[in-house]
């Protein structure tokens, strides 16, 4: 068979989809990969040629988690890194094997930090079994054998063998119960900037994304959902397009959408454009940006609010103040807008339903498939495909899987690929929640901060997405306080004597979602810009003022000091260049940024340089951390300067990249990354935390440059351009 980009995915999906259970009459049951190679542990398959296939439940979407996780396994396995490849187990297989691979969810910057222990154990157990198999063969104690780069050596005799040669025998052994993991001081692969496992396939085009998947006999679907959230499909006139070339069927999807299925996607899309559709837009069609903003403004002064963090007595603290500072900030709705629009391919028969999908959470896709198909789990499976961007859109939200199965059910036996248009993707996102904040700070005569009230007013993600958590918290959404919380992975980074941070929950009909960094993006803008406002009102240096309010927060202080020192805080900047700072704790990592900008004509901002420090405790692949941090600033700065979704007549206005632009390469600042990894009991995340400090650092530098304080995101609404 000629191997090309198209049929590659069919065969590789079949490989990753099938882990055959082989029965060996002389030993334990050996699990085999599709090519017959034995599985040592669930994480490790070793082929006779010594190639190591590491299996991971998390999804790769550019962030590098697969390479990092494979490094963790390879470290304990002591295998030759150059022989490592990876594959995804399917959620269906995992379920049958009592979820042996753990959580599939790839979000919340959790890929490494919540699975490092069990994946390392999977690698360590496999190594013990391989060594035991060699020792059994040589009839020597396993303790006399050492391993390095996939080679086992019996030290006293000098005999050698390879993992590939003993894999069959090792697979028949019982896995050890308790395996001791290496001391971090012994790490050889963890902490090294090894090359990513997926680069070659991306560069040579072998990597297939969901939206270029092709299955034999596959048809293509284009879909339109009611443009007003909450609206319904009333009727459509299929007869008007059913005669068009290639069109196979026009089908309702759920109660709010309609799809055209055709031979090619373009035929489906152009037919859908011509299809007369009647919507029942419902009462939400009356909602506008103005009505939403009015609700949020009301929340800023509302008497009732959910408390996220408090100490001391805020009223008494503010009453003592000789000077009070007050400011109101705003952060908008934002679509994830990944380069690859939402898509999923489904094939349904009453006996079996399968879905191929780029997903951040294979198990969430599986759950959506089960609900939409109505079939039991043992008749279904999901084949994961690497993502052309996720950023939080493709984890908890599986609307495209539900739709693909609903369409496939109306065409049994035929694989149907559903691909959203960019417009559909822009109008039916799960948007960064809209939020305002009013901050009130009190300073005493010596310029000490004696009280701070942060009132958040806006949308809750969890109320819409995880209502049971909000119910447990008596209506409060704890996630709203990311970076401002009293304790935990998003604990507040200041020690302020009288403090109240509360949230007037003002939900809208626009569905909210987890947008890269989630609520730290706006909370860092609110808090870190306001810290500058307070320092300036107190007549103090912004760095010194922060330091005074960071008692007992050594790791927050560590990253702040690191960026201040590297940017040259306190020393003169180049002519016309101004600096700003920000710090926060997010996803168990401590992050800070210092920006250098210049401003021309009062509104043209050039960001020259951002120094960004991240302290995750452990750095599995420092090169990947640098790329993650730089990449996050593309998103963070695009959002700061130029992106916003607004609502008119109940629907989203910005429907493509001409009105929802991204920064260009020439606008990208130089990013200098500082990684602090001194160990400790808790591992921090990387994917999201550092994004949040770029925006406030730039906004603070803008004030230094112009004397004008920016409080509304995006800055384009104030005529400010990124150049």
């Amino acid at each position: 068979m000629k191997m090309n980009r198209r049929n590659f995915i069919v065969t590789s999906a079949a490989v990753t989809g099938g882990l055959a259970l082989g029965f060996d009459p002389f030993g334990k049951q050996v699990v085999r990969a599709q090519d017959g190679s034995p599985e040592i542990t669930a994480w490790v398959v070793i082929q006779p040629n010594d190639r190591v296939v590491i299996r991971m439940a998390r999804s790769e979407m550019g962030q590098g988690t697969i390479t990092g996780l494979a490094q963790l396994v390879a470290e304990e396995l002591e295998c030759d890194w150059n022989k490592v490849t990876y594959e995804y187990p399917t959620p269906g297989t995992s379920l049958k094997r009592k979820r042996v691979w753990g959580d599939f969810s790839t979000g919340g910057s959790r890929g490494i930090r919540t699975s490092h222990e069990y994946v390392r154990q999977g690698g360590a157990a496999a190594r013990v079994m391989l060594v035991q198999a060699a020792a059994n063969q040589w009839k020597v104690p396993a303790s006399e054998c050492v391993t390095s780069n996939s080679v086992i050596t019996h030290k006293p005799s000098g005999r050698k063998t390879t993992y590939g040669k003993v894999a069959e025998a090792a697979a028949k052994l019982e896995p050890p119960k308790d395996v001791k993991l290496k001391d971090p001081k012994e790490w050889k692969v963890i902490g090294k900037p090894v090359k990513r496992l997926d680069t070659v396939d991306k560069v040579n085009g072998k990597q297939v994304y969901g939206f270029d998947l092709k299955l034999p006999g596959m048809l293509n679907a284009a879909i339109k959902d009611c443009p007003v959230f909450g609206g319904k499909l009333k009727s459509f006139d299929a007869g008007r397009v059913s005669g068009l070339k290639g069109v196979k069927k026009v089908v309702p999807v759920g109660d709010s959408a309609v799809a055209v299925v055709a031979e090619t996607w373009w035929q489906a899309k152009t037919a859908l454009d011509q299809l007369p559709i009647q919507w029942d837009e419902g009462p939400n069609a009356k909602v506008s940006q103005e009505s939403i903003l009015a609700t949020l403004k009301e929340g800023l002064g509302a008497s009732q609010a959910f408390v996220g963090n408090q100490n001391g007595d805020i009223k008494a603290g503010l009453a003592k103040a000789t000077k009070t500072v007050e400011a109101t900030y705003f952060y908008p709705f934002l679509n994830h807008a990944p380069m690859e629009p939402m898509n999923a391919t489904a094939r349904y028969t009453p006996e079996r339903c399968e879905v191929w999908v780029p997903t951040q959470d294979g198990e969430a896709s599986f759950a959506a498939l089960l609900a939409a198909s109505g079939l039991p789990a043992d008749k279904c499976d999901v084949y994961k495909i690497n993502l052309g961007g996720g950023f939080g859109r493709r984890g908890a939200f599986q609307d495209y899987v539900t739709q693909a199965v609903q369409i496939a059910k109306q065409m049994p036996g035929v694989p149907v690929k559903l691909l959203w248009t960019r417009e559909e993707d822009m109008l039916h996102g799960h948007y960064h929640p809209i939020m305002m904040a009013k901050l009130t700070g009190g300073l005493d005569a010596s310029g000490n901060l004696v009280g701070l009230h942060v009132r958040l007013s806006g949308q809750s993600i969890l109320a819409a997405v995880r209502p049971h958590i909000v119910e447990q918290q008596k209506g409060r959404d704890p996630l709203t306080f990311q970076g401002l919380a009293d304790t935990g992975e998003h604990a507040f980074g200041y020690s302020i004597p009288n403090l109240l941070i509360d949230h007037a929950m003002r939900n809208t009909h626009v569905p909210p979602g987890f947008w890269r960094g989630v609520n730290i993006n706006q909370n860092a803008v609110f808090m870190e810009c306001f810290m500058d406002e307070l320092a300036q009102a107190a007549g103090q240096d912004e760095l010194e003022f922060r330091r005074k309010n960071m008692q007992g927060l050594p790791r927050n202080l560590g990253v702040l000091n690191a960026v201040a020192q590297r940017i040259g805080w306190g020393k003169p900047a180049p002519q016309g260049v101004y600096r700003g700072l920000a710090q926060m704790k997010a996803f168990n990592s401590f992050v800070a940024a210092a920006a250098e900008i210049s401003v021309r004509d009062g509104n043209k901002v050039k960001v020259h340089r951002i120094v960004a420090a991240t302290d995750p405790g452990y750095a599995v692949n420092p090169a990947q951390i640098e790329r993650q941090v730089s990449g996050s600033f593309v998103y963070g700065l695009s959002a700061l300067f130029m992106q916003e979704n607004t609502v008119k007549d109940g629907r989203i206005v910005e429907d493509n990249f001409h009105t929802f632009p991204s920064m260009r390469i020439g606008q990208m600042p130089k990013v200098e990354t500082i990684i602090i990894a001194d160990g400790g009991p808790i591992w921090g995340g990387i994917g999201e935390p550092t994004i949040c400090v770029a925006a406030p650092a730039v906004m603070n530098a803008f004030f230094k440059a112009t004397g004008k304080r920016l409080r509304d995101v995006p800055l384009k609404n104030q005529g400010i351009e990124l150049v």
Partner: protein
Amino acid sequence: MKWWIAAFSAFVSSAAASDTLPSPLTGVAGDPVAGKKIVLDRHVGLCLLCHSGPFPEEQFQGELAPSLAGVGSRLSAGQIRLRIVDASRVNPKTIMPPYFRTHALQRVAPAYRGKPVLSAQQIEDVVAFLVTLK
């Protein structure tokens, strides 16, 4: 809309059927050296996104459109000019963007509305260069 763009829109309409736009867009003769720069510059003309050409030093040339090699033998200056100004006048299904049309475009970002991709003089420079590719 600037007067000259409006004027040329009308002018192009009248010339459309003839497959050529013989009159230069400006009174200043095109500069082939400047034209070559525009053709090769990925931030200005971006011609090599779709076209390839006799530019061995340039990496990653396009493969969506005809090679520019020999374009000066195949087409006259007027024919080249019309194709740059608005290739859809020659082929309504072309994917080549109109470099001098500002109306009836789709999804133009606010910052670019009402502005042609290249100025009249830049187009004259490009024409002056392309006719030399014999």
